[in-house]
Every structure is written in C-alpha cells, then in structure tokens.
C-alpha cells in the first residue's frame, strides 16, 4: 500500500492503493468515477479506455503507480454537458444500445479525431478495432465518427 496522487479530469485525488492495482480500479473504486468500465481486464475490449496525457490507454492494464501526476481524462471529463462533438454525434446517430462499451468507444473516437479530424473509413476502423461492442453498434460508430469529424471541421 502506498499513497498516490492522481490528476483526473483536472482535479487531484490522493488515494491509498497497492502499486499494482490497475488504474481502472483506482478510478472506479477509489476516485469514485464509474463511467470507465471493466470489460475484460486484459487489454482486449477497450471498455476501460481513458486519456493519458491525451493518448488513449487501457486503464485495466496500467498499474496505478505509473499514472501518478499524469494527466488523466475519463468520460466524465470529456465535457460537463455532453457538448463534446463526439458525444453530440453519438446522440445524433443514436449509437448506444446497452451503452456499456460506449465510454471506451467515445474516448477512443475523441482521441482519434484530435489527431486526425478527417479520418477515412479505414483509419476509423483501425482506430476502433480494439473496442468490442457486444450489442453490435459498429455501423453507427463509423457514422457518428464521420458526423463528429464534419462538425469539428465546421467549428
């Protein structure tokens, strides 16, 4: 057990955790932000994706000790009011079914669009292929990313 300070969504949290505890559980159970989901625990599904200094990472496979004082953004930190263009596009295209995978999908899409605001279908598939959706919303995810890209270019 050790004490760690995490920077999550612009706030600092000091927690007591085992150094090997995955960042995912630290965020969910100790910081108390449950929007980030557990799906597999072995970096296969993407449900646990958060931004780590702006890069999408799988929080299930990163020990909390590696995250100290790095800039972490979770789904809760994407916007206060669903105003992020990816959230807007997700609503416009009615992407979620059960919704469980969508935090991870949205974080991945937001990271993709930040570095490439006009991705091709192929680039979208490449960026999103690490993310499983058992409800099968993939077609709508593709569409929503295109919609978000168009809106971001206009903005």
């Amino acid at each position, binding site marked *: 057990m050790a004490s760690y300070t995490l920077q999550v969504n612009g706030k600092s949290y000091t927690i007591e955790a085992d150094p090997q505890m995955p960042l995912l559980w630290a965020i969910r159970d100790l910081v108390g932000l*449950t*929007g980030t989901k557990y799906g597999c625990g072995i970096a*296969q599904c993407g449900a646990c994706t958060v931004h780590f200094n702006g890069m999408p990472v799988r929080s299930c496979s990163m020990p909390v000790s590696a995250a100290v004082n790095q800039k972490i953004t979770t789904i809760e930190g994407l916007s206060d009011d669903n105003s992020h263009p990816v959230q807007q596009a997700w*609503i416009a295209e009615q992407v979620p079914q*059960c919704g469980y995978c969508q935090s991870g999908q949205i974080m991945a899409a937001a990271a993709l669009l930040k570095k490439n605001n006009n991705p091709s279908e192929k680039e979208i598939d490449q960026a999103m292929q690490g993310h499983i959706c*058992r409800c*099968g919303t993939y077609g709508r*995810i593709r569409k929503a990313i295109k919609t978000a890209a168009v809106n971001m270019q206009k903005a």
Partner: protein
Amino acid sequence: MNKTAQNISRRNFIRLSGMSGAALTIGFYLPALGKDATRIMRGDIADSMGIALNAFISIDTSGKVTIFNHRSEMGQGAYQVVPQMIAEELEVNLDDINIIFAPGNAKKYGSQITGGSSTVRGAYKHLLRTGASAREMLVQAAAGKWSAAKEDCYAENGQVLHRPSGKKFGYGELVEDASKLEPPKNVVLKLRKDYKIIGKPLPRQDTPLKVNGKAVFGLDKKLPGMLYAVVERSPRFTGKVKSFDDSAAKAVKGVKHVIKVQRGVFANLQEGVAVVADNLWAAMQGRKALKVEWDDTGFEHLNTAELYKRMNEDLEKPFLSQRTGGNFDGAFAKAAKKLEAVYETPYESHSCMEPLSCVAHYHDNKLDVWGPIQAPDWIQDDLCDRFKLKPEDVTINMTFLGGGFGRKAFTDYPHEAAEISKAINAPVQVVWTREDDTTQGPFRPGAVYGCKAGLSDGGRIQAFQTKMAAQNMGHQNPGADRSSYNDSTTEGFLESYFESIPNYSFGDVPTKSPIPVMWWRSVYSSTNGFAFESFMDELAIAAGKDPLDFRRSHLYNERYQNLITILEEKTGWKSRSKNSGWGVAITECFRSIVGEAVKVSKGADGKVKIDKVVAVMDCGWYVNPDIVKAQVEGSIIMALGAAVTHATHFEDGKAVEKNFDTYKMPRITDTPDIEVHIVENDEKAGGVGEPGLPPFAPALCNAIFDLTGKRIRKLPFKLEEV
C-alpha cells in the same frame, strides 16, 4: 394479498417517483390466467381492493407524468418505447415523461421477464389503453369544471382545450378532479394514421446518460459500507468444495472473509469459495492466492469432440416428435428426389459486455438486491423460496443492464450474492470477472440437426423432416420429466410452410450432458434457423429453382410473399448476375418474420468477405423504427460472431475459452454495411430484440455457396479459410 404488501404498492410508487400532493394514478391489471379481461384501474381503488397493478402511470399537480417501467433496459429500448406508447395516447410530449424502473414484484407487475422480445409484444395494447384512459379522465374533469359537453373538449400537448371558447387547463390543474373519476369502460385507441409519436424514430431518452458515463449499471452500484467479493467456482460446474486453504488469501491486505458459498443452477447447488475484501482489487488478489480442492465425483469430464460424437449418435436413435403432419416416411420413400444433410452449431457464451455482478444486502430478515437484472420477479420468487422470506421483504432493484441476451434472466448470481451478504452480515457486491462470465455458463446449447426432404418431379417439397440432437434446457429443472420432447424444434420455421408441405415431422433426441445450458438471444431459433434455412437453400438448388422463388412457391400466405417481394426489390435480386455471391434466409421468431440477404465476394487476397447485408423485418405494429433497426443491426453482428468468430469448447469437462483473446468477438473491421427495412402492415406487434439473429448465418452460408459452390454445414467456420 396480505395487508402490508397492499399498503406498500402505491406508497412505494409515490416515494420512488418523488411526487407530492394529489395525483392521478392509473394502471392496468392483468388478472390471473384466463379469469377476466384486463382492467384499467385507479391506483387508490386497486389498493383498497387489494389488487396490484401491472404498470402505473401517474400525473401530479405540476402535470409531470411518471411511468413505472416494468421491463428492464438492457439495450433494447424499453426505456424509450414504453414512454413513447404512453405519450401518444396521453397526448403529452415525450419530454414531460419521467421513467422509473419498477422493482421486482411479480404480484404487482405480472411477469417482468425481459425475454422473448416481449416488452412491446406482451403489453402494448394495455399500455395504450392505460394512456388513453388517463387522457379521457382528464378531458372529463375539464368538461366538468367548465360545465361543458365532453365532446367539445379535447386533449393536446399536456392540456385539455375547450374547442368553442379556446379555454384550456394544464393536466396538473385537472388531476385532483380526474383522480376521483372512474376510468372509462371503453376507450377508443388512436388510429395509426393519427400517430404523432408512435412510429417515429425519436431519439432514445437514455442516450445522453450513455455518452457521459452517468448511466448506472450493475457494476456501478455502490452502497455505504459495501464490501467486494469475487468467487472461485468449480471449473467443472457441479464440483463440490472438498477443502480450501485460505491462509495466503487472508494475508492479502484488505481481505476480510473467505467463505464457502453456493448458488442454485437448475437442480444443482454449485459451490465456490468467496473472497471478500474492502476493495475489489484486494478481493481479486486474495482469490489468486486461494487454494481450493474440488470433488468432481460423478461429473463427466467431457470434451467437445465427445459431445458432438454423442449428438451425432443420438441422431440415429428414435426421436420424440413435437409436430408431425401427413406421413413423412411414406412420402419420403416415394419422393422423386431425396436430400439429406446434417448441420452442426456450437455452444456459445452470452458474454454480455457487462460481466455479471450483483449487490445484495441481507439485514433484519430482509433482502435488498441491486443488479443488472432481466427477470426481477423470478429472482424475487427464487430468493423468497431460498431464504424463507416474504415477498414484501425482498426488494429487487434494477440498474441499467450492460447487455442481457438471456443470461441475466437467470437467478444464480443474485442468489450467490445474497448468500454471501447473509454470511458476512454486510452489504456486498459480487463481481464476476470476464473469465468467470465466459467459463461458468449456462451456455447456449450446441445442436446437431439431421435434415431429410423429398422433392416431387416438379420441384415441390413433398416431405420434410428435421431431427435435433441437443441438450434440452427444460430437462435440467428439478423434477423435470426427462422423457419429454422439446417443444421448440420448430422455432424459427416459417409458419406458412406448414400449409404447403404435405408431410413433415420435427422432433428431437435429448442429448445427455452435464453442461448447464440456457436461452441465448433468439433461443432455439438461433440454431434451428441455420439448419432450416441452409437446407431450404439446398432443396431450392436441387429443384433447380431460384432460392427466393422456391420459398415463395411454398409460402401461400400474403404476409410472407410480401416480405419476399420487398427483399427482391431492396437487393436488386432479379438483376443480380449468376453466382455473384448472394444468399438469402428467412426465419420466424417471436411472431416476427425476418428475411436477410447477404452479399459476399472475394477480396484481392482471394479471401471471402462480406460486402453487405440487407434485412427486411416484419414485426407488425411497432413503436420506434430507429430502435427496430438498431436491434436488427445488433442481432446481425451477434449472429456474425456465432457464425465466424467465436464458440465455446470443452476440454476435460471445463470450458476452454476464457476471455476475449480466445472467445473472439466480431469487431468494427468485421462489420459489413447493413441495411434494414421495416415492413409496414397492420399485423400484431412481434418481437424486435431477437428475431433479426437467426437468418443471418444461413444467409451467409448460402451466399458463400452461391459464390464458391462450397456448402458450409458446420458453425463456426473461418471466413478466411473458405
């Protein structure tokens, strides 16, 4: 019903809805089977008569409408379609409706199992009548206040208007008067052409919560003082705990208890050892350090090859017939052309994106449960039985479900959580890891089908038989008659074929196996459909007919013919070139008929790929076309997984695939273009969440045959190996 329960119902409702003051509360009541017809009743009258209503709506003095939703939301859109139905007849905006999940209570809500694609199918007329009755009472109340003729008053937009004078009252101003009126005996429901809300692709109200992490799923539920548990369960399902060594587990910081626990799985009590800690990660570490010895006496250490060998042998045995017509054997013997084929489908795990979890708090001889739950009333019943508690002392609270697909209609995971909470005397959340969720079942049963048919000279089906060898889900129940036939062997088959095929027989041989099995999205249709519709394609080809024409000539009913015509139009079927890789299949499931056409081609690398799927869904009356489309899209992806990416195998009596590295899900890169068309007709509402699944796999394999001449009779297969 006893006194306490009676008093609870409406009070609980009012508490949960956060309403105050007078309110018009009305709902419907489905009397016990076959007694009298459904009644629409005021909540207070129902209370005084000791009757529990199946669904409530309530309007308070501010005009706010609250619905107690009696179905769980697992992605299929119950959260949206129920309000859409009420809003339509009640004449309010969708935004004015607030929805609350009804806690599990079979007595209050009737069956709440979200399964069989039944949210709309099961209750739509009652929900519409409930909304319409409330509207009529409000109109009546306004007419009374104005001393006007009721005919001169009408409802619109949460208000009642007086046509001659233009005067109006908001609903809130009318609830007090309306709440003293009797619901009308007969209400006229709106005609489809007058719908403003039903039939429109309105956005789901749960979407905003699902794009910002605010939707609370089972795993997100936290209670003050709650502990976390993970359970080491017997990998061979029925194994008993012989002994365990918890010394290393208890040495992990945060671990509080290590206890033996059980959960009911059909007729068995399956055992495990729970590690309980003050945080989940500690519980997981403790579990790793735990040593358990299992006693597997009497459990057969089966593997998949043996299991399928057994099923194939079973096909040779006499079978139990569920449905026969004419004389199959005689007609088959005389047929001009005979065809026989055997089809194989795999065991599957449900693998909801949200693994199982459940929070339970056993205290003061009461039990409170929170979880992603598909069948709150069954779970309540089961827990009352097992813990000898009264229904009013067992509360089942539903969270959002991160997928259900049949698995979360089972009672084992709340049972286990309740056992642990009782033993440790604290609220606890039991978390199933992905590995637990994938390996413990119950699984979709794999099935082997022996199909035989005889064609006439003119290429008509004279005789048709399918024999299924598979585990019978019903035979697992305590005290089940294991010599009974499986009444689901025709699930998926188009009803209209029974009119044109003169001699048929459908039946099964129940295969003996200790692997726990249960419903998986679309149940038996998910495997039956593959056999029926692959074989239909083989028959069409043997008859020298176009696959769609062949089906059409055997479907006398207009509804089916219409679906075929739409499929032809939407695919450009008639203008396709020969062997261009089109395949089709049509199945019927939960009273909806779905036709799917798949187009495959060979990529530059010579490998088969899926270009496109065109689906035509006839679910009769429906509420929200966008949700219908989304459900068909999702069903196709799930079917794609079961056809080409995943299956559960067994080795030495244990499930082999444990996580998504081996139980491989379809991904965005596997996703073809999917086009969904909905048939407009006046048929009764059919299911929406499941019927899109069964036709995909046979349509895909039929397309591959069209392109390559290779017939695939065994699932799953690898697309790249075709």
